[in-house]
């Protein structure tokens, strides 16, 4: 069975690009437009990994990460945050919230795949 990755981003174009790229290599992708949408969609679904933007309306990325880590189901899944900030502050906050790693925007599809490979096989 294919692994499922959830991608959360308020930018349609980015969600599309991520979905496309991950689909190409065999992952199933669930899209959500913001934090709240993600929570809703997670109610009945199993995912193997979360890819989330940080700056979103309706429950931003950090809050989402904290929430998802509080769920026993998702306590140990890999979480990668998409960030435009290259400052350590954001990365630290993310790690403190429970993120596994990060990828900096803008990124190319190959870079996305390389990062995913680091945490999910």
């Amino acid at each position, binding site marked *: 069975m294919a692994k499922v990755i959830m991608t959360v981003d308020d930018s349609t*174009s980015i969600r599309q*690009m991520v979905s496309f790229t991950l689909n190409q290599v065999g992952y199933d992708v669930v899209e959500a437009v913001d934090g709240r949408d993600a929570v809703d969609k997670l109610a009945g679904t199993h995912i193997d990994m979360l890819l989330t933007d940080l700056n979103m309306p309706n429950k931003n990325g950090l809050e989402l990460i904290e929430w998802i880590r509080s769920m026993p189901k998702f306590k140990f899944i890999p979480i990668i945050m998409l960030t435009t900030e290259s400052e350590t502050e954001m990365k630290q906050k993310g790690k403190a919230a429970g993120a596994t790693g990060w990828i900096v925007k803008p990124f190319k599809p190959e870079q996305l795949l390389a990062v995913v490979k680091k945490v999910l096989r």
Partner: protein
Amino acid sequence: MDESGRFIEEFCLEAEELLSGVEDAVLDIEENPGDQEAVNRLFRAMHTIKGSGAMFGFDAVSEFTHHVETVLDNVRNGTVPVSKTLIDLILMSRDRITAMLAEANGGGPPLDSQEGEEIVASLKALLYSDDTEPPVEKSSKEAPEENFVPVTPAPENEVVYRIRLSPDLDIFSTGMDPVMLLYDLADMGECCVVAQTEKVPDLENLSPESCYFSWDIILPTTKSVNAIRDVFIFVEDDCEIVIETVEEKGIASQEVSAPRLGDILVERGDIERKILDEEFDTHKKIGERLVESGALSKEKLKSALTEQTIVSKMHKSSVASTVRVPSDRLDKLINLVGELVITQARLTQVASTREDTELGESVEEIERLTGELRDSVLNIRMMPIGTIFNKFRRLVRDMSSQLNKEIELVTQGAETELDKTVLERLDDPLVHLIRNSLDHGVEPPEVREQRGKSQKGTIVLSAGHKGTNVVITIQDDGAGLNVEAIRQKAVEGGLISEHAELSDKKIFSQIFAPGFSTVRNVTSVSGRGVGMDVVKRTIDSLRGRIDIDSVPGEWTKVTLILPLTLAIINGLLVRIEDDFFVLPLMSVEECVEIKSKEVEMINGRNILNVRGDMVPYIRLRDRFHMGNRRPEREHVVITDVNNSRIGFVVDHVIGGHQTVIKPLGPAFKDIKNVSGATILGDGTVALILDTSVLLESA
């Protein structure tokens, strides 16, 4: 590309939506400046356009939008108030972005960049409108962080690393499964992983959410150490990681015997040398005994044994292809082959006078085999020059940081092979020459910039074969040589006359003249002279040549030409009276026959007119006090010694002669003009002359 085209389309649609949303939000704010939510919407719109724009190639849009985003961020946190100016600017920006997108897609008119700049300036002005400190502006010029890039350049050698990975107890809660790290390492080479389970508690105390393992990984790989570190990029704060080099399987396979387990354990810090030594008194296998005595854990032993296996395997694979031979046995073999060659030459000669086809055929076959044998044997001692190149890289790196200069060493032709004995003696001169380039050649970054050069200087070290010689060049793109200063110094030292008209190249070669470096210089030649005569002497003793050329301000190049091997000489056999001599062919340019009367004496010097060129000469007969008889016809062998042409007068030139060099032995260790002897086909000893010494000695 199809996909990227789709994404671009999608982005433009998205941007359009967002931008019309901007309009709405602006209107909301106009009515109600305290509408925080609207401000957030504005911010996010700009943020998204900035981020996604960069993703899909709209760099100009992204950059511009960044400024708007910054302002809105400051409005968000209250640093910048909502004002009419702000609103106008936002609307102007919105229009500008729309226009930029249209232009980028080919559907809009070309834009005036000044307009854009003005908007940005005004935006920035908003940020500094207070007397308080300018609010935080996140510079868009910040170097974008490199995302993890999976490709790193591979070093030439395979290196064995020992990696110790000890994750924190609660690593699982970061979402990282350490096994992922092991997979990544496994992708880089055939690694062996040994888990260390000592910390695993009893079942009742075991928490399934904690990680009690650590791992020792032995990884032979061609990937760089940085590529290995990249594997752990996300877990640097959550793991203890130690990466050490165990073995380097370089071009020069070191003659190191397979590592002993005890040594490995001590090196890793698993066991103290003292305990190891104590255990050695009994006869059991050291590893077992250490475990039994409780000094070592089973896992640590297993890990060390794994390391030992891998390293020995690596040795075996390189050892299998090499055999250690004492040098003197090789010398003996080379000698014998040399003699064989000589005798075979004589055999060929004798056979040619007989009219015996059967004999002739066999002799021809022997000639062929002998030639092959000689080439194979000489090859035995050949080693690639890359073996010493590596250490120069280190030298350049260390010294350039010491000198606060930026210098890169580029090497070419590392696979070029030469005789081991030549290679060993080349080490010092090359170090010296490279240090010269580092010290005096390449200028400091500031100076280079002033001169319009790149801040980083380059030293190119290259090697290649040319005929039966090896040519090695060291070239730097530094300050070049100061012709005038060198000339001055040479004049002061009495090496050349004040009025001599010499080419630049000839002046440069004065650097190698003995006594040059000892001249106390009034004008500074920035130390280049020091030690150069030692370099020259070494190169001379290797029967090589050294040349230096330069374009002041641009580059300096030192060229070394060396024979492939010291054992054999390519020489020109000549005769004076009844004695035979050999002149090194490397320096010989041509041979001219002269009648004794044709020789001119100009200004009391012996000069010969060779096709209009004035060539001074030395009559070896006189130099060697061999009698006053002057044969009617003599021959002049014209050579190029240290960039000067000079002729040696002999009775006869017999021909090219390649043969093994016989040392004269310690009895002649101080002798000057003769560098060795060789044995001719009929057993006669011929002396090999040292042309540069002959020229210099007065």
